[in-house]
């Protein structure tokens, strides 16, 4: 399996030098570290967006201007509507308590009109227009508000940030590839004489490339895993105490699929680096006779 990955000791000696070393593993480790953190953030954001979106998708509020005088018949109207799965009236005292955070003692003033609220969940297809008509018959001015409409901008921002994270992962991968190309070219320059001799004796481009791609694969694998390990430690530290921990491990956890994706990232980076190096070496070799 993977015969291209294994070379004989004699082939290894052709490039000389240590089996592993140079700046390439360090560059890839730094790239892997930042890619892992960005990807983890992006996945956490996606998880948060999914969690928030899922929890409010079927959540509605019936706002009743003018207080709680008509609350009981309205609750009954909501409850009797087909497709409504749960109903909860929010007492005026709770509303004022909530407003107190922003308004202070003024929130308790009788001069401040506080609408009555009825929270309810409705299955898709529930006839909310009919419910609103019935509610308005009881309390003119009553209106149904979908939570997703009010939280929409936040969800939009979360999804945007998620795509920004994805874009950053792609950019970092491109930067890592560029570093690998430079490393491959440097290696070709260093070993130009050996390559010329091998070509002169009848070596094919693939035989020459074989030597380089294996070395770069080892550099990339070690660098990727080291960077990923460092990122994992940072994520664990964050998850255990920092504010971000709430997002990562509390409200929006990184699920099993997210963890698998993160675990695969260093290997994906290794494969990308090796493929880029192989392509760069083959292209460079084609310039020679």
């Amino acid at each position, binding site marked *: 399996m993977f015969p291209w990955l294994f070379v*004989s000791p*004699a*082939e290894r*000696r*052709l490039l*000389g*030098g240590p089996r592993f070393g140079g700046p390439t593993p360090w560059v890839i480790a730094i790239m892997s570290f930042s890619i892992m953190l960005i990807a983890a953030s992006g996945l956490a954001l996606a998880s948060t967006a999914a969690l928030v979106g899922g929890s409010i998708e079927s959540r509605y509020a019936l706002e009743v201007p003018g207080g709680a005088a008509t609350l009981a018949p309205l609750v009954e109207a909501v409850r009797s509507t087909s497709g409504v799965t749960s109903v909860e009236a929010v007492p005026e005292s709770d509303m004022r308590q909530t407003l107190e955070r922003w308004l202070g003692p003024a929130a308790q003033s009788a001069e401040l009109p506080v609408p009555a609220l009825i929270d309810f969940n409705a299955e898709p297809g529930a006839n909310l227009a009919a419910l609103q008509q019935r509610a308005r018959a009881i309390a003119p001015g009553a209106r149904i508000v979908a939570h997703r409409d009010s939280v929409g901008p936040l969800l939009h921002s979360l999804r945007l940030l998620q795509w920004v994270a994805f874009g950053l992962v792609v950019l970092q991968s491109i930067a890592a590839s560029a570093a690998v190309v430079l490393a491959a070219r440097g290696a070709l320059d260093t070993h130009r*004489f*050996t390559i*010329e*001799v*091998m*070509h*002169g*004796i*009848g*070596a*094919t*481009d693939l*035989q020459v490339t074989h030597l380089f791609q294996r070395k770069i694969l080892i550099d990339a694998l070690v660098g990727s895993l080291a960077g990923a390990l460092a990122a994992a430690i940072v994520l664990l530290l964050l998850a255990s105490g920092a504010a971000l921990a709430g997002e990562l491990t509390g409200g929006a956890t990184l699920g099993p699929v997210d963890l698998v994706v993160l675990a695969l990232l260093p290997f994906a980076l290794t494969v990308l680096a090796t493929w880029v190096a192989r392509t760069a070496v083959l292209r460079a070799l*084609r310039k*020679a*006779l």
Partner: protein
Amino acid sequence: MATVAEFDSVGLRYGTGAEVLRDLDFRLRTGSFYFLTGPSGAGKTSLLKLLYLAQRPTRGRIKLFGEELSEAERESLPPFRRRIGVVFQDFRLIRHLSAFDNVALPLRIGGSSDDEVEGSVREMLAWVGLADRASARPPTLSGGEQQRVAIARAVINRPELLVADEPTGNVDADMANRLMGLFTAMNRLGTTVVVATHDVGLIGATPGAQLIRLENGTLVDPTGTLRNPPGPPRGDS
């Protein structure tokens, strides 16, 4: 008459400079022994580069082993290069490899097994008198030893065409005779040998060998040896 190489109106220039080789027309007969001579700067090394496929001609046509290779795809060249052994003037040994690994390189590139490599390389190193220097790296070898390693590498896989650029330039007379003996032995086995040299004594000591003389990038052939059908290969008579 089988030929290893055919040059038809071949010219070579480097970049935009003047032609270093002009209007070369000759054929190398399979199994023959040739000396390539001429003053320094005549184009001997350039001609050899064309022969061992390190350069393409800028004009004309070159056939090697019956195949037109002047404009062949570069991917098709390695199999032809494996049929050619080259002794470079500057040896071109890989410094970080041992003498053993340098000599083994053509066999490994050709896909020989480790056992085949081990036996053949030990035998070849013993023949060139370097059996006890197998693990030495080129920088620790004398000029003559490096040259013998280079020759051993060139002949290890019994090439059909052996091209040598001043192969005896750094060895003493005794070793020069031994090396020429090796070339002659290979020639007897059917290898076509082309040796570029200034050493007139060497030419005189190799009866039956033919002469290619270059001057100012053109073939000078006062004897007509090359234009006429060459004599029978050595050992045929």
